[in-house]
């Protein structure tokens, strides 16, 4: 595959669908290896989940964490995709729905924006190399996912 505008656009849709459907299930989360470089870097610009010096430094760490929170899962619904074809970078503005797995109810709705650096691996497959993650700052007193479900880090 080449890193063209249209191939990136299609790939991004597939990535979000796969993450929301499989990325947090113990038996299926390994499907996410298709999308991540082994040395993936995830940088959260959110103090409550580690801040820019925290986050993850490998696909393994990301995927293991994403499937380790059975009490909740999140759905990511992209509203806008900004694609820089020349540099192989995209930014997604998306809605996040954090679902209470026991009740099957949406516990949190908010928006987020993330910046993704892409690369082609040796077999010319698109992979995410770096994710820089921002989310909506909610009003004081709002309970984030870690307030509701404990201190598991998010996987996305």
């Amino acid at each position: 595959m080449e890193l063209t505008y249209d191939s990136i656009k299609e790939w991004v849709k597939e990535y979000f669908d796969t993450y929301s459907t499989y990325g947090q299930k113990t038996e299926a989360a390994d499907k996410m290896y298709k999308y991540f470089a082994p040395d993936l870097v995830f940088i959260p610009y959110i103090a409550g989940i580690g801040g820019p010096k925290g986050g993850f430094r490998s696909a393994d760490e990301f995927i293991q964490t994403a499937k380790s929170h059975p009490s909740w899962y999140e759905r990511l619904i992209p509203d806008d995709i900004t694609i820089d074809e020349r540099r192989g970078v995209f930014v997604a503005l998306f809605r996040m729905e954090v679902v209470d797995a026991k009740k099957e109810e949406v516990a949190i709705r908010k928006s987020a924006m993330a910046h993704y650096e892409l690369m082609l691996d040796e077999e010319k497959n698109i992979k995410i190399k770096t994710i820089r993650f921002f989310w909506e700052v909610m009003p004081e007193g709002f309970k984030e996912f870690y307030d509701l479900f404990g201190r598991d880090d998010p996987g996305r």
Partner: protein
Amino acid sequence: MEMTYDSILAWMKEYFDTYNAYAQNPDTVHKMDKFFAPDMQFKPYVAGLGGPTGEVNSREDFYKILAGHPSSYETFEAEDIVIDDRRGVVVVLLKVQVFDSKTNEVLLRKSYLPWYQLILDDENNIKIKKIQFFWEVMPPGTVEVNELFAGKR
């Protein structure tokens, strides 16, 4: 001007230079007219700035915010500029510093991630039509930008 990748990149650099130099002074804020459509919209995904339903819907109202905090000012350094020239959309990862206006002491360092919808006006000048705005969530106890702008230290 056409909206090509390179023209957008050069324009964004000029925009940030102009912002840093003039946007936060009531005497010079109208230099930003070059960059904003009159009906530009600012949509902050930050509750302390009004949240996504507390949009600003004109550049004149936006200027009241930009030039309305004389006790401190912010500077932007573009760390990464993402350009979707097909759609005229740009996202910028910004390193931000907030300074005390009297002492020039740095009061806060953080990152922003604004999204910009660009248009061409009737004279083919690039203008910002809409900004969707996210910022870094700082640790509890941090005096935030909006609080610093309101004079809190």
